[in-house]
């Protein structure tokens, strides 16, 4: 399907990706793992969960929904399970009592075939929105969050992964996806690796002709800043609510779209629409509204579902307050989905 510039309301609202799994799905997964349910029932259960998530997004008024990553236990694990060459030794802790199964690379990596295309096709079939977001964990983060027992260096591993991710994004483009977000939460954690990490991401998006966003969170954005122009993506989706909207000046000079994180995903307190509006007004000192998307800081999966739903609603309501002001002041009511590497 060819690229097209779809119209969106000004300050398009979206999600970063993950969303809490419905309780019944968690019970089903437990049962599936324990052998109480058959594998053939899994697709139906996951599909139903995606319908429920998309409905939550739509009821909240989110313009660009995702499938909530219902089929993914974890963002690195999911891809490591589908790329040949990984092995799992067991879970490792990420914070508090939260874990992920950190994979180990024990032999050469090989692309086995599409990993997210079916997810995208189903999401598109059930969403009312014309544009949906598909998330892919980036090569640097997969490399950084894996144990490397095989490749000579992390750099070599990341470039091998970049080649694999590139094939995946092209498969999504071929299937008709318009908007892919590469998730790179680890990107700035080793400043001395930034030079090649940026090149690995660029390799992963090489020859791609759809909108590509880059999500980086809980990071020192000063490390990212020198690479704003060099990264061949059209949008940075960054977390700011968790840090109380400090450090906003770091986006001064950004010549791309900003996906602005206005919802703290690690705090159960639901933000008010006024707080969201205030944050958006604050960021507009640095970014033109035509180049601004509104999203939570990160995936919402660790929150209770009712809290996640309420937070999305507050995010959309807060955005609407500013939209009215923009329409009144600037006559700005719509923007188009852009894939350009710069935003005026």
């Amino acid at each position: 399907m060819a690229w097209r510039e779809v119209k969106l309301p000004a300050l398009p609202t979206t999600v970063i990706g993950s969303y809490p799994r419905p309780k019944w799905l968690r019970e089903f997964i437990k049962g599936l793992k324990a052998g109480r349910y058959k594998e053939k029932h899994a697709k139906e259960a996951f599909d139903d969960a995606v319908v429920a998530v998309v409905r939550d997004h739509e009821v909240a008024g989110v313009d660009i929904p995702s499938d909530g990553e219902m089929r993914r236990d974890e963002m690195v694990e999911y891809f490591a399970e589908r790329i040949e060459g990984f092995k799992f030794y067991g879970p490792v802790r990420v914070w508090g009592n939260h874990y992920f199964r950190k994979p180990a690379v024990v032999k050469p990596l090989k692309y086995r075939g599409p990993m997210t295309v079916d997810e995208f096709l189903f999401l598109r079939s059930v969403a009312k929105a014309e544009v949906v977001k598909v998330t892919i964990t980036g090569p640097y983060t997969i490399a950084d969050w894996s144990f490397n027992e095989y490749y000579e260096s992390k750099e070599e591993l990341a470039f091998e992964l970049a080649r694999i991710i590139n094939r995946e994004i092209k498969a999504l483009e071929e299937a008709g996806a318009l908007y892919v977000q590469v998730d790179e939460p680890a990107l700035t954690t080793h400043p001395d690796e930034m030079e090649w990490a940026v090149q690995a991401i660029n390799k992963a998006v090489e020859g791609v002709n759809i909108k590509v966003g880059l999500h980086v969170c809980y990071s020192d954005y000063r490390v990212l800043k020198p690479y704003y122009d060099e990264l061949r993506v059209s949008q940075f989706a960054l977390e700011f609510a968790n840090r109380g909207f400090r450090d906003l000046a770091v986006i001064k000079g950004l010549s791309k779209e900003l996906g602005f994180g206005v919802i703290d995903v690690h705090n159960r307190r639901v933000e008010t629409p006024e707080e969201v509006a205030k944050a958006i007004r604050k960021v507009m000192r640095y970014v033109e509204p035509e180049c601004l998307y509104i999203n939570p800081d990160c995936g919402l999966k660790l929150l209770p579902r009712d809290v996640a739903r309420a937070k999305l609603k507050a995010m959309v309501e807060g955005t609407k307050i500013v939209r009215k002001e923009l329409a009144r002041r600037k006559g700005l009511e719509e923007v188009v989905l852009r894939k350009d590497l710069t935003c005026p």
Partner: protein
Amino acid sequence: MFRGLLGVVVRASFNGSYPRTAGLARLYSRLHSGRLSGEGFEKGVRAQTARLFKLFKVSGVTVFTDGMLRWDDILNPLTGFVEGVKVNGLVRFYDNNFFVRAPVVEGELRLRSDNPVPEWFETAFSLAEEVFGGPEFTLKQPLPGPLTLAEFSVNKYYKGYWSLVEGWREGVLEPLIRELVGRGLKVVEIHEPALTWPGTSKAKLDGATAELGKLIRFCRDLGADVWVLTYFGYLGRVGKYLSRINEAVIGIDPHVKGARKAPHRLVKDYGLKRVMLGYVDARNTKLEEGKKFRSAVKALIRAGAEEVYVGNNAPMDFLPEPVAAKKVRRLGRLTSQYFGGGK
């Protein structure tokens, strides 16, 4: 204890935290969801701690911590028991996919009297005695160092950075250590990754080592020995200031990228006598090679180290528990095989 090459003692040591087992993770999950009482949790944690001590015993690791099984990370829950602190959002723990809750300092720092760390130490000590059947072990208490605490703090109260560092040392660490020593603690294990982390400005190293020096003297005056563990960063960065803290056992992480000098060169050039070599990589599943292990330790001794410990370079939270268990067993076996100081 075995006096090996040049009469130097080499002992296997387990430092900092041990990964939560699936069983312990379940205990936490049930506690948080209200399906397990505080008493039930306590019983479970004691069983898990005893299990860990048994692993140390069969591996021949006789210098160890309690695995910090009751801690979420090096800062918490300690910072939650400090007046003047509000525990807030998650921040990345250096370059790891591991996050800690940062303390927001809103008032004068003062250790609360209901902090449970001394009681936890006492409980762990009794369990270790039961498992080892006598006093043939050293139980260390890991604590965050004043610089690391300050670097993770969001300071809304103290006027200057050094007042904040001093606040952590005088208001929290020193009273806590005094209480711990009163309960039988002999070795304080100070974790100071901030000291070698490239993100900590070089301008701070002078003041930081001076503060650490004060803390070390405080502990020694109480009769407690001190270890200062640095990891993720190159120890040579502290270079000229090391003499201020080298009364303590200094932890060296040999797995640091871009280190300009090998651990034995650091020992030689900075005159380090008491060293913990973090040969066991807590951030990779690959098991350590025996021969390289032997030559790395021998090089330290030849360079002038007089008291040598070998252990994990960093907290072990970054590994799956089954791999961590393998590494602990291997640490004990290699130390014993080459130096007689493990099993």
